[in-house]
């Protein structure tokens, strides 16, 4: 059984990546590279749905920061979906990194944040 899975959906303004399973040093970089690699230039940003991630450690947090930097360099935003009662929320709290980027409770809310934002670079 693979430790994690990434399911990618494209909407007109964004790429939505739903991550499930466990993310640790064995797969964090692959997960990040998969999402970045799939993001089209036209997308305003990426919605990284971590609401169904069961485990995330420092390697995963590190990759989230890395993703944010890569996207910023392309003029794209990263919005994280992390509900208050979720394993990822607890990991971030323990690591003292409550907000490693813009955070929303749901994918819908994340898309609204992205849509209400003026397109960068044009």
């Amino acid at each position, binding site marked *: 059984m693979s430790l994690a899975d990434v399911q990618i959906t494209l909407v007109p303004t964004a790429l939505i990546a739903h991550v*499930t399973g466990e993310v*640790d040093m*064995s797969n964090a970089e692959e997960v990040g590279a998969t999402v970045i690699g799939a993001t089209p230039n036209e997308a305003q940003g990426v919605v990284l749905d971590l609401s169904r991630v*069961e485990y995330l*450690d*420092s390697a995963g947090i590190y990759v989230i920061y890395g993703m944010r930097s890569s996207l910023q360099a392309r003029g794209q935003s990263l919005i994280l979906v992390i509900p208050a009662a979720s394993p990822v929320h*607890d990991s971030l709290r*323990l*690591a003292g990194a409550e907000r490693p980027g813009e955070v929303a409770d749901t994918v819908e809310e994340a898309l609204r944040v992205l849509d209400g934002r003026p397109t960068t670079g044009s």
Partner: protein
Amino acid sequence: MRHTSPVAEAPAERQRRTTPGHGQVVLLPTEPLDPAAERDSSYRFSDPGLSELSLEALLTELLIRVQEALKVDTVAILLYEPDSNQLVARAATGIEEEVEQGVRLPLGKGFAGRIAADRVPIFIADVNHADVLNPILREKGIASLLGVPLIVEGQLIGVLHVGSLTPRTFDQDDVAVLQMAAARAAPAIERAQLFARLEHEHDVSMVLQRSLLPQRLADVVGVNVAARYLPAREEVGGDWYDVFELPRGRVGVVIGDVVGHGIVAAALMGRLRTALHSYAIEGHGPGRTLELVDRFVQSLNESAMATAAYAVFDTYTSALHYATAGHLPPLVISGADVRMLEVTPAPPLGAFPYGRCPEHELSLESGEMLLLYTDGLVERRGVALSAGIDVLAAAVNAAQTPEEACTLAVARLVPREGLRDDLAIVALQNAAVPSELHLTLSAEPKTLAHARRILRRWLNERGADEGVVAEMTIAVSEACANAIEHAYAPSPATFELHGQARDGEITFTIRDGGRWRPPRGHNRGRGLSIIVAAMDDVQIDRTAEGTEVVMRRRIAPK
């Protein structure tokens, strides 16, 4: 034209002659054999021992007997292959190349082709001047040929032909002897062919069945598993079992029985096994998973049906959820006590539209075993099913491990003479959690997930609540990740993880043979931050021999 048969010199009323192909003569003997020759030939070809032989042995034996009876240099048997409408060389003496080269001849042309198509004996006096397709016959220097068709109840089986390296006139007696050989051999060949085909199908379905069952059972933290599959005496069936890992520390165990036998049942079994595993991974519980497999079977538009029992065991909480579809009730072995689990009657998969498979739940305590089995194990002619299940329960009540349970069940219930139906049995045990953890783990990233499964189970058993389990698991996993990063690549290295609980306090020790590295980059320090935040006390001891991290946290009693 000199190549017509000298037999032609015999009175015209004794035989009809036609020339189906250039240089070929059709011979139809009307005169009975000389009685002495008849007795002799009859003995040669009606030996009842012939019918006992396998196809290969029978053909070989036939070659020898025909060669002796007719004193010929070559004998060949070509068998008819209906699918290709061709004759295929299957056995030969004197012209073994025919078989080695896999000679195939079309019906209706050449020497053997005409014999098969017209179902008549044909004699060729001079091969060099006759219509012969197979070049091997000429290359071998065969001068004369005589061949007859092999026919059983009007069905063409093949062709039997003999050859002489010196020009030879095959007379009416020769034709009669060869025809007698053909008449006696043909049914035996047909029987042997049929048997060989059935045997082949049996072998194929056996291989199929084996390849569709798990090659090895999933190695899941927290459970011990064992399984057996035994084919029936006569043919394979559609029994299957499977054990697979599911997300969040759960493990699925299933057993099923496809109605029917042979390749078709084995193939359907493979599809059902895959379908069930797929639905299970999607996160459906046992009841819903079985219902989805039922819909899948319904959608096949085949009169397919199967029974199944499926259970999901949570290695963190010891909860066992199960459901059945027309299947025998699972057993739970608890020490010396064996109990039959309650099941809600549900139709077999594929039997009725919208079949429902209600789910049941129980706690499978540490050391207890779940036993799933198919009816092949407990069904015996003239014995009530419940009596068979009682025998099974009595057989396994002393089993300490799944392996033992399977061994005892098979030893006690499989009759000496073999099985009428195939059987499968699978046992899953909630492995006892040790009071102290002593793990030696390989220093590679994939170890982490494995270690976390062990940790969650161990912490649950120590009485830590869900949130505390999650926090300590991430802390220990971070410390393990550090140990892995310290390992001197690329040689295989290990590190140690110890855990103990004393007076309401949990202590973990993670020891490796490498040097503690200062965090690299501003985000790499987060691992240590997590450890410190999740535990009450953390000590890191770095020496030349390695690094030891000792961390403690008090847990509130549940």
